[in-house]
């Protein structure tokens, strides 16, 4: 069960209080009525599904009710940061990113090489 920091409540709370809300920074086109079928499919269906650093939204649904953004490593499930909705995509601190990538490299083939000596 994840431990998630709500940037509004400024507290670490259990995943049970939150609902995942998909990829972050997917902007609804202002002129949505005028976009092409391809553009619509991209907006509505296509997601990055990153292996590694991902930006996503959560809602503190059983808490303050606010939607917010998070940067998480989808390999280790470690949160690198959370920040309020409406803020632009936040760069992940370099040290954190390196840690995430190192972790990704070391855990990536976990299932096949678990227990491997290095």
């Amino acid at each position, binding site marked *: *069960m994840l*431990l998630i920091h709500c940037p509004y409540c400024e507290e670490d709370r259990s995943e049970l209080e939150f609902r995942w809300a998909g990829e972050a920074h997917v902007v609804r086109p202002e002129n949505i009525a005028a976009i092409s079928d391809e553009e*619509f499919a991209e907006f509505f269906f296509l997601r990055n599904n990153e292996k590694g650093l991902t930006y996503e939204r959560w809602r503190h649904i059983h808490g303050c009710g606010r*939607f917010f953004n998070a940067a998480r490593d989808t390999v280790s499930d470690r949160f690198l940061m959370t920040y309020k*909705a409406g803020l632009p995509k936040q760069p992940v601190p370099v040290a954190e990113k390196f840690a995430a990538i190192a972790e990704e490299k070391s855990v990536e083939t976990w299932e*096949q*090489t678990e*227990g491997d*000596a*290095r």
Partner: protein
Amino acid sequence: MSASSNSGAFRIKGAGRLTPARTARFTFDGNSYTALEGDTVASALLAHGVHLLGRSFKYHRPRGILTAGPEEPNALLDVSRDAARRQPNVRATVQEVFDGAKIASQNRWPSLKYDIGAVNDLLAPFFAAGFYYKTFMWPKEAWAKIYEPIIRRSAGLGVSPTEDDPDHYASRYVHCDVLIAGAGVAGLTAALSAAATGKKIILVDEQPEVGGALHYDASTTIDGQNGYDWAQATAVKLKAMPNVTVLTRTTVFGYYNHGFLGLVERVTDHVAKPSKDAPRERLWQVRTSKVILATGSIERHMVFANNDRPGIMLASAARNFLNHHGVTVGHNVGVYTAHDSAYEAAFDLKRAGVSIATIVDSRDKPGEAVLAEARKLGIDVLSGHAVVDTSGRLRINSMTVARNGNFDRRKIKVDALIVSAGWTPSVHLFSQSRGKLKFDEANQRFVPDVYAQNSVSAGACNGTDNLAELIDEAITAGGGRIALSGENRFDWTGGMIGAAEGAGPDHAVKAFVDFQHDVTAKDIRLAVREGMHSIEHIKRFTTNGMASDQGKLSNMHGLAIASEMLGRPIPQVGLTTFRAPYTPVTYGTLINHSRGELFDPARKTPMHALEEAEGAEFEDVGNWKRAWYFPKRGEDMHTSVSRECKTVRDVAGVFDASTLGKIEVVGPDAAAFLNLLYTNAWDTLKPGKCRYGIMTREDGFIYDDGVVGRLAEDRFHVTTTTGGAPRVLNHMEDYLQTEFPHLKVWLTSTTEQWAVIAVQGPQAREIIEPFVDGQDLSNEAFPHMSVAECTVMGVPARLFRVSFTGEVGYEVNVPADYGAAVWKAIWERAQSMGACLYGTETMHILRAEKGYLIVGQDTDGTVTPDDAGYGWAVSKKKTDFVGIRGLKRPDLVREGRKQLVGILTKDPKEVLEEGGQIVADPNQPKPMTMLGHVTSSYWSENLGRSIAIALVAGGRSRMGETLYVPMADKTIAVEVTDMVFFDKEGGRING
């Protein structure tokens, strides 16, 4: 040697820590035995000389007790208190004896001593690893009909419980700073150190008392005391500290993400007469900042021919039974080892008066200190030798010994054989936390390397063997400043993994690697020969490590044999995955309170009890219990519903609509917001008026619907479907917070705040009029689709003039607390006027007679407003709303989409099955082309015939066409019609 007479002939006076005066009686396979309090089932039976406890999985070989702990693969028993409290697959080495326990062996027929299944042992040459993949294929049907049932019956171990579990289970959530798993020397020391920092500590151990290895290791002293005594004293000290919790009989079974761990505490399974209030087990869910892993290590067996006979046991287990339980495993004990630790077991037994036949050591050079001690005690040691065979059908009676590489054999009589191939660090929790291991080549073991979470390993689980180093490591792990000294008599050396000398050649012997699953060294070699080069393939092909002990003893041996066969070093062969739980966990514990009513609490309306009193039958709609119909005495559902339908249209009916979702939308931009969230236009709706709204998502399919009333310029009362309320609110919040944050709007769920009493029918106005103050109910002042704030019986109310029946209708919203009282008064008056109560079934029929759709029944997430015949509800003028673009996609505007229409059976008495499929040509061959399906279908008492709604391809252009609904036993002809079956002109709604 003298034995306590009633608690077993193998009990040694003066040995062990149990109190002879405190006894418990139990039965095993019908025979009665006396145990001492503190005995495990294993120690109690051994005290009586009982070694044969079970049969193995595949070959049904006789098996005894191999270990003294949770890693036990053999001694799995059926333990019961009474018929409903029966537990299969209980490890005899963990279960404490309680007075009155009824214990039985498993997987044998007709008896443990004479088991028919043992014929498999003779047929073993045919049952090599994976043999079942190569046969049982002819004839084709025979697998499922003949072979599989036989295999299923012979597999499995214990027998499932057959009754509901009368015990209850508890649950606790806890936060702490440091969780320490394991309370041996390392764990206790770490706890003392961590506790000194003032942090909140939880110390956990799976045994009834703390101490870990100190249970058997009688020669270690700590802080000048006997080790075990120090451990108990330390536990007392720790328990007295306000910042420390000590949990015994508690297993850390899972180490999950972000410092979350699962613990199971066994509360009453060892108690003869548990209090009724006490839970059987308790689940602890702990979130901690840091974990100290002090989980120790597990001794391995030696892999050699016939190494599985009852009486063959790990050296540490024998030492544990002696030093803790005061029980010897035999009178003439052999030792086969590759590690110094087994010597200490032999020394302890010898000093207790047990004869040691000989110590067979596979090493040419055993540790010098233990060798010297053996000489001093007069114990024979055969170094550079192997045990190459054993004999004894139900209990070992001899071991055959040969010098390594030599064919001269000699038989040595023994009544027990204790073995040790060395120690495997318990890295299960570390691996579950996703840490990375490294291989310690010198000691042939995996130890923690890279940590994935905030944890640290201390002691044997970290490969730290030396006592002084272990204590230092534990103190450092705890982060405090304490001083502690320890002393042990021997530093151990040695150890091996893989098959010992006596394990070959393949054609002749069974040298067991995994006892429970009967996996032998040759099975692993066979897997490699067959191309299984990944350790995961080998595991799955042989089932090595897949038994209920999950490979605690077998994994390293299997790996080493595979590595040798493959000619690749162990690290390159890899280790199979460690998965939670560390030891099996009862479902009931994981579930704890979440059963029965608490499994998924039912939502009930404020009028539920009154409806129940009126005889309502209820149906489940999402989490809600909704009144389904109100049968009078002697009525079945059909007659009840027909009466309700007639009465509503003839007089009136009262209906509980409280489950409808309700959302208060408030703010200066409320109308603008609804304009964006619904397909309809809302700015044109005047205060005091209602409008039916359709909501789509961006994809343009109907997501929800409901009536929205405008109470003021800046205030809307939105209703949603019963099941849709939470997701609609979430959907609205999502857009409000992230896409349209510039809009000044507040959203509040009011579903639970309002009780809603619908009164529908020609007499509806007359029924409610006397109760209403502050609103003129005349048609002119309050026509269809009006809303007003007024009082009802003096209670502040929101009154809607809406109809889901096609009759004059009102929905009285009052605060939930007043719901029952208002309902009661309205119903009393309605009843006196000849009206009825009606439930959801009648509601469904009446709305179907009028062709009103139900989202989720007539639509299914693939239906557009136009498909449903509600194209008019999609604003043509708005330049934006959620769904505006999705609706224009090629497939959503193509010809021939499925559309909602009415259908009438040619035979008016025929009621179609909801879900019936519709075809144009019922005589076409299968697979047929289906045009759509029946979404709603009812008997309409008001029309004296059946009616139905269907989604049909190109439906609206098929009016009058004859189509067919082919059923299993007949084909039903139907005609496509419009959806309004009753009062087509719609005059009744305006009264």
